[in-house]
């Protein structure tokens, strides 16, 4: 509850009102919250080999959702575009000064659209609000099944509903699922600091606002598991990191 006092203070200090949870590389929004430095780490996640086909989703029972998709919908477990892998969650695993890092004032947003979660993979800082929105005119059930945190199991029966929840302990990753539409899955990385990003459809990611130093980065993908990489970066510099996942 003391967080409620902190939130307006942080907003003034850092001029932050941004939606924190964006999953694309070019936003790098988390870094803007508490910039300890001016170093940036960016890179691309590549994929080698033939990506497995995503399973088809039979949305026949929800015509309004089927209509939201141009093509026959598939479960976007593996998103590979031109050899680049999207929906990879990359975070600084070690090398940062000891925290604590305050949670950003704004919430990270996850939306339910056309019976899919958007974004599918996102990160929040510990105790940052996660705002769950429903853009579908039907009932979604949102169930988080964390191992380290307190889970929740709530529902949103109508379009336009918003619910906020938060996680108190770092956890990679908290699975979110809709039990009404069993195919709906999302993953939330709960991190103790704001230095994380999700690779975009082009595989690119960017983590800014870091202090100079040497860091171990970890990349997580729901199908292909984890990779780590080391990187050293100085003030004002941008260091490049590459992750590569392979089929099978």
């Amino acid at each position, binding site marked *: 509850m003391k967080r409620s006092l902190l939130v307006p203070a942080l907003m003034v200090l850092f001029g932050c009102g941004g939606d924190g949870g964006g999953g694309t590389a070019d936003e790098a929004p988390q870094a803007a919250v508490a910039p300890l430095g001016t170093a940036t780490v960016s890179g691309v996640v590549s994929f080698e080999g033939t990506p497995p*086909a995503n*399973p*088809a989703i*039979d949305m026949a*029972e929800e015509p309004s959702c089927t209509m939201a998709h141009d093509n026959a919908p598939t479960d976007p477990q593996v998103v590979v575009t031109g050899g680049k892998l999207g929906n990879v969650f990359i975070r600084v695993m070690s090398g940062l000064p000891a925290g604590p890092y305050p949670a950003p004032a704004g919430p990270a947003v996850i939306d339910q659209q056309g019976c899919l979660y958007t974004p599918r993979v996102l990160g929040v800082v510990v105790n940052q609000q996660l705002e769950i929105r429903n853009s579908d005119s039907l*009932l979604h*059930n949102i169930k988080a099944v964390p191992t380290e945190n307190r889970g929740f*199991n*709530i*529902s949103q029966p109508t379009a336009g509903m918003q619910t906020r929840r938060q996680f108190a302990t770092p956890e990679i990753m908290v699975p979110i699922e809709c*039990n*009404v539409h*069993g195919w709906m899955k999302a993953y939330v990385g709960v991190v103790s600091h704001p230095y994380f990003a999700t690779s975009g459809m082009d595989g690119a990611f960017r983590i800014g606002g870091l202090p100079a130093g040497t860091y171990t980065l970890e990349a997580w993908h729901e199908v292909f598991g984890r990779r780590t990489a080391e990187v050293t970066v100085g003030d004002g510099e941008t260091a490049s990191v590459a992750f590569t996942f392979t089929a099978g």
Partner: protein
Amino acid sequence: MDWTLPPGVSTFAADIDRMYYLILWITGAAFVIVEATLVWFLIRYRSRPGRKARYYHGNLRAEVIWTAVPAVVVVMIGIMSGGVWNEIRGRDSIPPNAVPIEVRAKQFEWNATYPGPDGAFGTTDDFTARNRLTVPVDTPVVVRLTSEDVIHSLFIPAFRVKQDAVPGMTVNVWFQVTETGEYALACAELCGNGHTTMGGTVEVVAQDAYARWLEVESSRRAASR
């Protein structure tokens, strides 16, 4: 007020409905007799000046009659119901040639697994469909029903089928449908936030169409694997 049941399309639906209408007639008669007597007494024996109630403590013969008659009637209802119950749920009621389907309920969906063209579970031609049950007409079907999480209840109103799906238990529930078509399937046991959405469809197809459907679905799903 409509007291009729919606049309039933399984072999035992008519038996269940007959029991229902029998009980409806018996209880309806009892209802009319009791309520009419009550109203009549209230009017006939209303308090009027100069009338005194009869000082009367009861009558053993009346007691015996209205003990014995309901007892006989309800035991008769019980025996008749028992016969139909045995036909549907008795130990040997499931026809040996029934087509098996595995239904696993979970929050909030029905996952029906078919043995594929080879008729055996656990082989590579098995496949699973969500919220949709496809069964052949005029053929006994046995659903091996279980649940992965909480208690659900498989309710197919038109078949007069209702059976709880209990985690940790597999219950065999059978039916034989008499008409092709699409019928509603629902969950009848409160199972959580999405209980209300836990519906589905049962598609009843001709026997040869069912065999074809098994092959097509099995190979289609094998291809997408």
